Every structure is written in C-alpha cells, then in structure tokens.
C-alpha cells in the first residue's frame, strides 16, 4: 500500500503558507544558493533558510532520519572529496593557495606533508552553508506539507494533470519503498540472513544483497501494476480532472512569492551581472593560521 510521509498539522506559520508559494520559495532558494560561492551571500541564505526551517516547528526526533542522510552525504563530500582529495574544490578554488602546514606535521614520529590549503578549508565551510541551507528547505516539505496537496499544487503550477498526479504518487513511493524494504528485511532475517555477514568485494556484496533487492524491486513493479489497474478502473487519465484539495492564496503567500522572486532574481543578477558571487577567503580567516 502507498503510504505517506509523516505529515502532521502543527498550526505552525508554515501550515498557513500555500503549498504553491512554498514550492516556489524552495526552488527560488535553490537557484539563488547555487548561483554563488561567495561566503557573505551563502551565510545570508543560510540564515534565511534557518528562519524558514524554524517556521515549520518540526522536532529533531521527527526529522533525524532525513538529517542523518544529509550529514552522511555532507561528510563524504566535505571531508573526503574537498579536504582530503581536494576534488570538490576544482574550478572554484584557484590552484595553489596557502598551505595550512607548509612544513608538514609530525605523526607517529614521521613528518607528513599534507597539501591542505586555507582556501580549501574555507571552500568546505561554504559548501556546508550551501548544502545545509538547501537541505533545510527540502527536508521540511514531507513533514509539514499535507500529502493531499501535492497533485493539486503541481497541477496549479502548470504541470499536466496526469504528470501532476503521478508525481504525487512518486513522492509517496519513497516511504512506501522504505516500508517494503523493512518487511523484506524481516522476512529474510527470519530465514537466517544477516546483512552484517556479507563479506567480500563490492560485486560479491551486491550479489549477496539479492535476497533484499529482488523482492523489493519485484514488489515495486507488481504494486505499480496494481496501482495502474486501480487508477484505470476509476477513469484516470481519460480527460481533464478536477482536484478535491482546495488551494487559495492569502496575503502572506504574496509576501513569500515576492520574496522568492527577489531571492532568485537578485541572486542571479548579483552573481552573473555584477560578478559579486565569486569565491573569496576573508582576511580574518588567513589571520587565524598566521
């Protein structure tokens, strides 16, 4: 069965903003945040995102599974890609730069030369601001947006009806998949299967995951056929449809829409017209390593 994200009405300020205005704000934020590497802009966006996030009144307990995933990805991106290999900084951070340990450092009696630069550390900080800001916008949606509103919202934003409803189903497919995965995991554990026991190389590991992957995939295919049948039997996709969920803009929504336009257009103009969005390291940060 298709399940929904754990939405609950909290009577929070976010509950009173029209879903269309919320989606528009989140995408405007995404445009603005991805158009710059300037720390002042990113810090400003981060503060805006933090205020926006607080409007949702969610708790850490509710959202922690989503945040765990974000923090894991952030760790991989920042620590491994940017700090250790320097890969993520290419194209933004100019080559060269000021080494943090120009003479290397001692580890177990040996001198280690590690080419970490001050610029790469600052770039990692900018990445954190950008990713956390964007994540705060989108993590909030499943927990604070009524599951009934998705299709009507997308349709109202100009998506064709069929696509709008199937997008709604696709969004709900994620928690449904997680639920199916958990049931299959239990069924296979009951047959003595332990995920921790899987050893060997990457291909062996993937092959040994078959008892989990195949039933979950097959179920997803079968249930999508059932869903298609259930939709067909009630005349889906045969003509123009109406939506039960009622959307109505209020005064607050116009303020949000205006701010969204300002954010996206202002961000793009500042970055691409006035070239204010370039990556710079502030002097006070250099001073810390002096």
């Amino acid at each position: 069965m298709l399940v929904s994200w754990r939405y609950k009405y909290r009577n929070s300020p976010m509950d009173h903003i029209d879903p269309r205005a919320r989606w528009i704000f989140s995408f405007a934020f995404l445009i603005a945040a991805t158009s710059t590497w300037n720390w002042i802009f990113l810090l400003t966006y981060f503060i805006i995102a933090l205020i926006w996030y607080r409007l949702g009144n969610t708790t850490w307990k509710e959202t922690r599974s989503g945040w765990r995933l974000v923090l894991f990805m952030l760790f991989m991106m920042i620590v491994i890609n940017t700090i250790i290999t320097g890969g993520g900084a290419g194209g933004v951070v100019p080559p060269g730069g000021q080494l943090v340990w120009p003479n290397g450092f001692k580890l177990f009696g040996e001198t280690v030369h590690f080419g970490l630069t001050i610029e790469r550390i600052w770039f990692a900080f900018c990445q954190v601001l950008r990713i956390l800001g964007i994540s705060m916008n989108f993590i909030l949606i499943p927990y604070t947006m009524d599951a009934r509103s998705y299709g009507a919202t997308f349709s109202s934003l100009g998506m064709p009806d069929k696509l709008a409803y199937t997008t709604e189903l696709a969004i709900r497919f994620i928690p449904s998949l997680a639920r199916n995965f958990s049931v299959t995991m239990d069924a296979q554990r009951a047959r003595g299967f332990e995920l921790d026991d899987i050893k060997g190389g990457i291909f062996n590991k993937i092959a040994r995951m078959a008892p989990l992957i195949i039933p979950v995939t097959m179920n997803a295919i079968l249930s999508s056929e059932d869903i298609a049948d259930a939709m067909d039997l009630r005349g889906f996709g045969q003509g123009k449809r109406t939506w039960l969920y009622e959307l109505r803009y209020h005064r607050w929504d116009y303020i949000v829409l205006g701010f969204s336009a300002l954010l996206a257009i202002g961000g793009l103009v500042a970055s691409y017209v006035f070239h204010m969005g370039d990556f710079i390291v502030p002097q006070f940060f250099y001073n810390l390593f002096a």
Partner: protein
Amino acid sequence: MVEADPLPLVVRDLSFQYRSRTEPAIVEISLELHPGEIMLLAGSSGCGKTTLLRCINGLIPHSYRGKLSGEILLYGQSNAGMKLAEISQKVGTLLQDPERQILGSYVLNEVCFGLENLGLPREEMIRRGEAALERLHILHLRDKETFGISGGEKQKVALAGVLAMQPKILLLDEPLASLDPASAHEALHLFRELADQGMAIMLVEHRVEDVLTIEPERIVYMEDGRICFHGDIQGLVQVVDYHRIKLPAQVVVERAKAEPQPNFEPAVPPLDTNNPLIEFQQVHFRYNDDAPEVLHNINLKIHAGEVIAILGHNGSGKTTLVKQALGLLKPTKGKVFLEGVETHTLTVAKAARTIGYVFQSPSQMLFAPTVKEELSFGPKNLGFDQETIARNVQWAIETVHLEDELLTPPLALSFGQQKRVSIAAVLSMRSRILMMDEPTAGQDYWNYQAFMDSILQMPGFDSIIFITHDLDLALIYANRIIVLNDGVIVADGKPVDVLQDRQKIKQWRLVATSLLELNFQMYPKTGKFLRAEALAQFMD
C-alpha cells in the same frame, strides 16, 4: 408493445487467452446478470474468475493484451468500443486486496479519486463522497489517513470509492480475503443491501459457505476456464465436489457418509509442560514513543506438543505478538524467552534456528532463480551441510505438492503456488517451532487443506503456531486457541473451552460456523473437534 429494459450484464461466448500464455484463460463463457441479483462466481485458483472480471470491467483488452472473442453487453451496449472512464461509471470493481486498490492518503480523497477523474466540481465531489461514506456507515472516517485504518475499514473505504461513481454493476474480486469473520459478514450483508437496492453484483469468492448466508440468486462454478455449473444453491451443493469448495458442514457430512473416512493424525510430540519453548512475561509493546500501545501485559507459555491457533480481529496485534517470539520486534516492557534465552540477547538469525516464521505475503521474500535455490537459502544461512540441505529441500517440496516446479522461478508461479513455496522455504530450515501468519489467505480450499494436513502430519516440529481468520481451520487443526482482542489475550485454552460461549465469540468479532455448531452437537459422541468428513462416521 413495451420493450423490456436491457439487462445490466450479458456475456456471450466469451474467450480470452493472455498474450504470454499458450492456453486460454476462459473459454466460451455465457451468462446474464439481472438488476438486484447477486451472482456468486466460485472455483479453484487459476480457473479464470479474475480474467472474466477483467473482461467485464475493461482492463482486458485496455491493460492486458491477448486474444479476445465473444461479446459483453452492458445495458445492451457492447463494452468493446467504450473508454475505461465510460465503463467505470457503469461497472464498479472492488479488487481482492484493498491495500492494493487504495490510492488516496486520506479517506475522502480516496473516495473522490474517481470523481476527480470525471472532472466533477468540488462541491459535487464532496456531496457524492460523503453520501457513499454515509451509505456504508463510515462517515466518521472521512478525515482519517487511509494507512492507519483497520483492514475491514480499508475494504469499506475502497468500496465507497467505487460506489461514489454510482455504478449499476458491482464486481467484487474475493472481497473477504483479508477480513476477520465479523467484518466479512458485515461486508456480505452490505452487498446484499446494495443488491436489494437494485444493483447487479458479481461476487468472486473462495469462502462459499459464508456467501451462501446472503442467498445469492445465481451461482456459477468454474473449472479450467469453463463454466461447469450455473444454477441455484440447491443445485450447487448437489453437483460440486465438496473437497474443492467449502460447503456447509451439514451438506458435507451427508455427502461424505458414503465415502471412506479421512485418516488424520497430527505428528507433534506429546505435550510437555516442563520446559516452555517460548515464554512471554508481562510483555507490553508500542511501535514508537508517540504510538499507542499495541500489546498489553501479555503472559504466555508455549510448550512442545502444542498446535496453537491465534485468532483475533483485524489489528488486534496477532502478527505483532508472534514477531516478538522471533525477536523481529522487542518488547517495550517485559521479557520474551526463547528456549530459556531472552530474545534481547539473540539475533534473529540465531532465533531462526528454533523458530521458522512464514510471512503473510510470499512476494516479500521470494528472490531466487529457481524454487530449489529458494528452498536452499534458509538452510544454507543456518550452516547446514549439502546433504542435509538436499534432504530438507526434497521433504519441503513434497509437503507442499510442488515437486514438478523445483526448477521454475518462484516469481513465475501463481499467487497460491508462491504462498506454498514461501511455506516450503521455511519448512526446509527444519526449525523446532513453525509459525505461520495467515497460511491459507488467498489459497483455494482444496490446496490449503491439503498442505495443512501435510504439515501437521510431518514429524519434526515440537510446536506449530498459526494466525488465522478461519475459525474452522483453528478448530480442525489446533489443540489450543489463543484469542487476542485489542492487544490483550482474552481467551487461551482448548478449542472446546474457548469456543463454548457464543456471546464472547461475537464480542471477539468471530462468527460461529456451521462446522463449529455441528461439532458441539456431536461432541458427546466424538469427544473432540473434527472436520466435516470425519464427523460423518458418527452420524446415525
């Protein structure tokens, strides 16, 4: 001269063969359905019942391709040229599993889904949606999440979604399969009410005995895609093989008198109450801190020699209870011991050496390229040697009568066969305790009785535990019945003691069957509960 109104449904010489199959699924089916009539469509799994429904509601040929011939008239008009949206306003279909039919995340959205597709104005949708909920006496569910309501309520919500479109013909595909006995009887009476209001209903169902209580006007019995019987109840009980479909116990007893008596002796060892295999001590459970408690103060000991049926209404906590024994769920408060070891200290894989647990849905676990490999998976995980694995696989496959399918991919089998493979996959682990969650759901009568007989007669299990909604299954096979009601054990004991009080049975949302009544009548002679065929030998 006044011209008679055309009938809601006329099927003429209908045949269909799926594109991927070599044999036709249905052959030259002809029938008529009148307004206000209920037609029961019975037959074993794979006999073509669902295919016939798909032809009527237009899924064939719109969604399923193949060779179709013959004619279907809906109120005198062929459905061949109609769009699905047009058919869906004449023919409403309720699928077997409401979980697979419900699309909306909230009840009113689900009920109005079809109306949205028809492009109706919002006010009209709400009016028709609420009217449909009111008609089924579930208006109080209007703003609930569909995921959180019980199985019986889901079934009614799915039906409300169909009724909101105001069809004149209703097709019901095994609508009782996932319902507890009381919910099933409520649903049946609802169908009768709808028919009495003028709706034409075609009802596909394995639970024939239950359906007979609402006196369907016509009964069609199918085998191998053909109609073998078309008539009334009296004709059916005389003609049809009572091993194939479940008939009222009195009818079976009468007909079984002339036949050799079944020989059934369960193979579980004698009762040993000294060392409990499983013990629950003051167990409470909730799924998370915010969720309500599902199990309340469960105290229970399970011993070698017991065959236990766990009964209870939809959502009473049956599955949650048995999952505690295997350690798939851990108590929020209290302790569970498996052979004296607390499950908190055991991994599920270790517990699986003692308990074999068959899940409700086979598709959640089947993955291997062949049935043989599927059956070897569990024993391999438990570290058995090759010779033992081969022996266990052979024994398991014979128990479920699927010897010819050893090299077939399990996912290519029918649902009923997949269910038997999933049971065999657990049997091959040769655990001391076998736990089965709804082992007979979705199976036809002959198949489930055959494999339950096989399992109960196989030596090797110290105890067998099964969850069921089928009261007859419990009284035939179990020597102990546990009844759960809202997470509390409300009865625990011998079947004859637990099922004595009809008032309590009703309170627990169970329904006394004809077999139960007959067993109580015959109890002074038999001294135990027996299946209908076995009761025949005690009749004068």
